């Protein structure tokens, strides 16, 4: 399945960011996007058009689970929760990402 993310992000990174966000507790799509934007100090803006397909991919891989609930502002919202399989996947992706980042850094410093 092709990984389809924000073109400004490295491939596959969006899923990792979502999973990381969900380790803080269940959250809905809006909250996830807000969190990533806020923590990255507006550096990363998640287009909702890529957020939801990414969430669907995570759902189908059973890395997250979803259920309808009531948001903090008393609205109906769909909450996502990370599953144990999702935590394992996250750890893997973080390792891969670190490895990649280090490689890129070496290339850039060498140049």
């Amino acid at each position, binding site marked *: 399945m092709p990984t389809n993310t924000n073109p400004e992000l490295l491939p596959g990174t969006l899923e990792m960011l979502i999973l990381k966000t969900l380790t803080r507790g269940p959250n809905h*799509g809006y909250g996830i996007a807000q969190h990533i934007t806020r923590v990255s100090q507006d550096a990363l803006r998640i287009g909702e*058009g*890529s957020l*939801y397909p990414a969430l669907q991919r995570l759902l*189908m*891989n059973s890395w997250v689970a979803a259920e309808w609930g009531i*948001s903090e502002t008393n*609205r109906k919202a*769909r909450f996502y929760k990370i599953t144990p399989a999702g935590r394992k996947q996250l750890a893997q992706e973080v390792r891969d990402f670190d490895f990649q980042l280090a490689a890129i850094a070496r290339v850039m410093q060498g140049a």
Partner: protein
Amino acid sequence: MNLWTHLRYSFRRRRLARDLAEEMRLHREMLEEQFASEGTPPAEARFAAQRRFGSAMAAVDQSRDQWSFAWFDSLLRDLQFAWRLLIRQPMFTVAATLTVAFGVGANTAIVSVLETALLNPLGLRHADNVMVARVRIEKLQMRHAQTSGVEFREIQSMTDVFSAAAAMEGRAWTLQSGGEATRLVGQAVTPDFFRVFGEYPAVGRFFTPEDDNSVVLSDSLWRTQFGADPSVVGRVMMPDDRPYHIVGVAPAAFRFPAQAQAWTPLRLDPKRLLDSQRGNNMNLGLFARLHDGVAPAQAVDRVGRHVAAINSTRGRSSKLDYDIELDPFGRYIAGDLRRPLLLLWSAALLVLFTGCANVAGLLLARTASRRKEIAIRISVGATHSQIVRQLLLESLLLGALGGAAGIAVAKFAISLLKHLVIPGGSMLEFVSLNERLVAYGFGLALLSGLLFGLAPAVQLLRQSQSSDLVRSRRKWFQDIFVTAEVAGAFVLIVMTFLLLRSLWAVERIQPGFDPHHVTTAYFIKPKNDPGFLDRLQTALHANPALQSASLVNPVPFGGGGFTSGFIIKNRERRPGEPLRHGEMYQVSPDYFSTLRIPLLRGRTLAESDTASSPLVCVIDSRLADRFFPGQDPIGQEIGMYKGSARIVGVVAAIRGTTLEEGSRPTVYYSLAQVPFFQSAAIAVRSTAPAASAIREVVRRTNAAVPVYDVKTLERRMGESLGIRRVLAALLTTFGAISLLLAILGLYGVIAQVVSERTPEIGIRMALGARPSQILSQFMRQGLRSGFLGLGLGFLAVIYAKRWISGMLYQVQASDPATLSLASVGILSMLLIAVWWPARRASRIDPQHALRHD
């Protein structure tokens, strides 16, 4: 991601789309709120939110792609399409379905018998790992013989390959209950017997080595005699008026041997286990269970090495070719049924295969006529692989339909099979259609679907646009199918002829006695009633319903016999004289007249030959011819079972075990002079059914005597012919069907070619071709594949010759008359099949044909 999740999402995607749309709407509302709270005016906030959100529809679409299997969707569409096509051509669908159904049904039914006979005999659940040990001494023509105690001791000690071993010895008791005497059969078994078969008691326990005078009941005995009372353990049963303590009840599924009603402990005398006792008292059945993970071949190898060691230390036995045969339990039970069943299975596969070839031919023809439709689909963007998938799906669907119908056919066929009269037929009771067999049948049907769908699909794949090329290729395919069909039909027809001829030959054999209107019944001689036999004969003679009555042991065609070596007094064995070996019967004086066995010389046995008078015997002409050639045997003395007996008469030879086997040298003793057998049989001649009269006479003579195994002689002989009859009947059916299929196949091909080429023929006729030219052209084309098929069939018959000759009688597998009759018969039918459409071609009216398209 696994397939299951994918399928689940695929089926639920409408709800998922709703969920996603709702979720995104809520998200947008939150964004609007956020913008509004940051001070943007409401209308602008909504616009901003929408912009921020990106294309909502695109997101939904993207997600939808993830949920669904694109190919799964189109698969469903193709399936619907295929279904509509099949419904639109009901004749074709019904014909193809029936063809597959018959092939699959016949196969499944036969495999169900095979399974019961070879894999799961008698319905035993845990017998897969059980091996049977029997003795073979080739020099004495002794095969499948039971063992002595020595072999039991040896097999039991091979703990590296066997986890348990047990011996059993037949027993029969008389049980008195409610004023009725019944014969109880069972086995005395060593303690591990049930463990070998992996069985646990339904009630109570099985035997321990300490047990003596205890008994384990079969489920049926427990139900009939004890009303399935669970507290039966500890009660005492009195077979043969001796007390046996009931310790347990075997599970209902455990029926081994098939007739066994009870098991008692077998305590082997230690003397029977001594090496010197090898070959003595060979009346033990010997069974051993393989350790888990040990292959039967390993055990056979282990026993083989052991036998080699024995033979090398004992020079004498190696000259005798002493061997211990080790067979899987299933093969032991199936015995003689194995070969006929395998033959029927291959015949059924052949029928299925011819059927497939036929359906493939039909499909090819149909694909050809669908060229336009397919061309249109390709021009609007269908890929070749999509078209091929579509074609394969259609044929798989046909296969599935045929499979479902085939299972129904098998169910019906199995219920018919249960009525067969064959030796060992009691096992047919356990034949049933289990889920494994249904899977086999259905798998076979789908495989057939794939097989006959492949031809049009391959043809399409190769379609290199030139339509002439395609046509010639299709014909090439169809020729192969027709050739194969003719070959298959030829093989089956030849086999059928051979088996029918064997059956006729065997049925024409005169057994040497007149079996019509003779009823026979076994009884157990009472131990404490010395005058019983005399009173019984008097009572039988006094009964007006019985024209003639006598006693005999054993009954001819009764499935058993007494075979023994004998000596001729005062006569050295001449060089080249056959082994002095023969059959023994004990009879009452009237036996020869009851069975109408002619007396050739001297006298028959008489009332005056009693226990106190000198021992005499009557021999048959076979023994006389073989051992007293050119001499008068009367007055000579031979010794077989008891001292020397003077020969007083010679009677005609009879065939006593099977019709096929020639008669063996036979000695008849008087029942009064050789009384030491437990049972004997009554043989009466009566035009009316005599079974109840026999029972009544015995009951009134001594109510404590059980009567069993009551059958007419004709029925006993019929059982020995059963396999031949069944084989001949089934093969006749299979052969006729495959021949019909081959004829239809050939007819179909030629008819289709004719209809396709009608305009061309019209032109040729208009240009002056004569009808006879057209006729012979098509005839030649059709007969070419017919001849080729016959040739292939010939080769197949020659190849299979060795294999089927064991089932034939007085006819060779390569019998020229049969082969030529079958070829001429098939050829003439093929001629008609070809001539019909070819004649139509020759009668085409050019005027009409040219306007045809």
